[in-house]
């Protein structure tokens, strides 16, 4: 276990270094030139977001099936990391879009559905935050974790269903990938690097979630009130006196 703890960040760092080197050495695009190199971070970020939400889906189903707290922690942690990667994909896409399309943002189905996916999972996190009881929180989040995943295939298929500004899928499509082999290899190296970063972040977040659960359990065992528990509704003085009598 300790070996995994140390090996995973090292593997991620090596993969990132390899990915950056490969992205620099890969041939430049004929039309876009060096700008196209943003693809090596934009696409892996989006795919890692898909992976994160798929893990949330599986862990949510796992919780509904087995009711083990570990599944809830995995679902929540993966959703948080997924939100980070979705926001990163949107930001990188926007940086890429400005010089290529001439705008930071355009009303393109892929962009809109991705932004909506971000909000769906922000809603998931808000639902978790709003529910104080751990069991109810896990149950509600698991149900929404299953419902929310509907958005992922919509995002992926949006470029096929509505042909607009964003280019259609080049790798995750039926048939051969429509991309040059050196570019494809570079992209896949970066995908691996991003997935290792995801694994590192997920592991860190899981550790925090486990500590949070331990702290909450300790507070319950000690009979201590949670933060804010000491705050009571204000009373008028004479009302308090009447209540006392």
């Amino acid at each position, binding site marked *: 276990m300790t070996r995994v703890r140390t090996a995973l960040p090292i593997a991620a760092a090596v993969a990132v270094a390899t990915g950056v080197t490969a992205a620099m050495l890969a041939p430049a695009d004929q039309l876009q030139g060096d700008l196209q190199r943003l693809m090596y971070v934009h696409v892996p970020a989006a795919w890692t977001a898909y992976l994160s939400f798929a893990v949330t889906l599986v862990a949510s189903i796992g919780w*509904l099936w087995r009711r083990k707290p570990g599944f809830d922690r995995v679902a929540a942690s993966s959703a948080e990391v997924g939100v980070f990667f979705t926001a990163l994909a949107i930001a990188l896409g926007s940086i890429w879009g400005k010089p290529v399309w001439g705008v930071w943002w355009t009303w393109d189905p892929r962009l*809109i*559905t991705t932004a*909506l*996916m971000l*909000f*769906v999972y*922000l*809603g998931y996190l*808000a*639902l978790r935050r*709003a*529910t104080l009881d751990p069991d*109810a929180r896990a*149950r*509600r989040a*698991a*149900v*929404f974790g*299953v*419902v*929310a995943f*509907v*958005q992922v295939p*919509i995002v992926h298929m949006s470029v096929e269903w509505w042909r607009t500004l964003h280019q259609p899928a080049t790798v995750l499509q039926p048939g051969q990938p429509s991309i040059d082999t050196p570019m494809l290899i570079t992209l896949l190296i970066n995908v691996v690097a991003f997935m290792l970063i995801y694994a590192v972040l997920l592991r860190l977040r899981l550790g925090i979630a486990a500590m949070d659960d331990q702290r909450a359990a300790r507070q319950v065992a000690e009979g201590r009130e949670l933060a804010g528990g000491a705050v009571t509704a204000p009373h008028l003085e004479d009302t308090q006196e009447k209540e006392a009598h």
Partner: protein
Amino acid sequence: MTAQAATTPSPWRQCVELARKDLRLELRTGEVLLVTAPFGAVALLFVPLAIGPDTPLLRQLGPGMFWVVVLLFGVLVTLRQSAADGPAQLAVLRLCGVHPGVRLAGRALANAMLLLTFQAVLAPVAIALYNPDLTGGLWLIPAMVLVAAGLAALGTVAGALAEGLAGRTILGPLLVVPVALPLLLGATQVLATARHEQAPWPWLLLMLAAIGVIALTVALVARFLEESA
């Protein structure tokens, strides 16, 4: 036939009775017709004020604005205060043997009726304020029914997820609105397609498919939602 089977109403009957209970509560409080609908009308009135008196532009924007207002304010309709069951009501329904799916279906049915009324009130306001091109306007009727059904189902799930939470009326829209994209897309495209003298069946089918997926999800997760209530 046992005595219990003879006295237990069918799931459909239970669903209708629960919907009637919700509608009766709405009749007493008037939250939708007296509060939410005027609020929606104010929103429709504010848009031209913000854009300016550009009549051709407003004519073009009108249908889209109508659906956006229906979607955003319709979520409030589905999450209205009178739709919040307390633990006592839920306990009684459980003791009566009402299946969680039937309870949610009853709520969704009542919500759909209220949303249809809400749309019927707002549509003339939108027509009067924006004067949109109503070519193929009859197609709006199935679109309104499907939007009401889909939004009602989504709102019912969100209401159950946020049941008992302090911020349920804020959290609910965040849970519903992003997932309601197929409904908004279908509804806006129905009139746009009909205007070109084409039957908007693909958009109606998209909405119908989305409702099917939502209904299936509600049926699958109803038991878990009941536990969390």
